[in-house]
């Protein structure tokens, strides 16, 4: 699980072009949207595509994303339980 959290942080920084953010600055339980990392709706779409492409998880209900993308820790738990690749 720790390895997956690290992997997710790397992917978030790379795919969302967070040039000024380092892995150490993203806490496992930090909120990704709103006051935390400050991600927005376009980032949410990027993360949905990432789940599909890298872990074989298709989100059919967009409302699901709101819960799944709350933090890196919640994302990692969801991916571990639902990944198909």
């Amino acid at each position, binding site marked *: 699980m720790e390895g997956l959290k690290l992997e997710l942080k790397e992917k978030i920084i790379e795919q969302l072009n967070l040039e*000024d953010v380092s892995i150490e600055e993203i806490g496992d339980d930090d909120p990704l949207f709103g006051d935390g990392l400050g991600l927005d709706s*376009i980032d949410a779409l990027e993360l949905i595509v990432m789940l599909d492409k890298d872990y074989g998880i298709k989100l059919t209900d967009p409302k699901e994303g709101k819960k799944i993308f709350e933090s890196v820790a919640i994302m990692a738990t969801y991916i571990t339980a639902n990944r198909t690749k």
Partner: protein
Amino acid sequence: MKNCYINGLGCVSAQKTTESGFLDDIVFYDTNILPVINPNYKEYIPPAAARRMAKGVKMGVVASSLALKDAHVEVPDAIITGTGMGCLQDSEKFVSAIIDNDEEFLTPTSFIQSTHNTVGAQIALGLQCKAYNFTYVHSAISFESCLIDAQMKFNEDEASTILVGGVDEHGKHTNDLHHLIGHIKKEEAGNTDLINSKTEGSIFGEGAIFCTLSDEQTEHSYAKLVDVEIYSQLSEEHLESRIKTFLEANKLSIEDIDLIVLGNNGDLTFDSYYKTIEEGIFKNTQQVYYKHLSGEFNTASAFGFWLASKIIKKQEIPTLVKINDQPKKIYKNVLLYNQYRGENHSLVVLQSC
């Protein structure tokens, strides 16, 4: 026709044009691809906004910001942007993703940012400017199309301050294709002696050049934009007569032109257009060129516009842009002529004010 004054300039290019000097420290390149000298983008764009911006958008935001600041204008009445290829890097990224992922897993960012009007849109967002915003995409006359639109806006009293600019960025895949078809020189020519090149193709560049135009002259004005004409097709035989007609329409003669700014790009096949007038009707006129400094790109003529405006205001010509050496005089009427590969010709007259 209403008066149109150039009151501010901003230029991001392969030269040190965001600094205070005027081409007094030329940067030389050994390659055929000239990159811009990046300004410190963080000084102009908040990090949250910059993270989705490709280079062309950032260059455009910086150049437009400099042009507005130079003219002491905060928000213009219109934003008109010219670009030949738009946001090429994001276009390449998006198309590559379609191919690499077998038309699946397409992410939104590069698609959103790949449209040609992204630069104008991002400038407007940054300024919170909800006014007229238009982007012209027309090869080598994209920038001149913007100038014509701006003139019409002034004539119709629909604006009194307009931000006009030209932006194009390098795209690796696109440059590779241009190299393959000979539009970029086969040999690594560099930019030191481009005008004397004896081979086909050119050296490619990128850049963002903006100007603040106004219907009112200020103490900061560089020059007056007198007239612009564009032609998609124009033969070498008809070039001189076309120029004469254009000048006559503006009550000017060949002898009235104190300086001609030419778009020579070192392509043996198509620089003959420029040679025709260099050795013909303008043989006794001071001639300058600029594409050895900027590189060739669809809106490189905006760099020539920047150069001409600076020369008129400063009344000095940087040595390295001179094609010939005529006795120094007052540069009052300046003609700009550009074409790319024998198509999309433009004539622009600037006048000191």
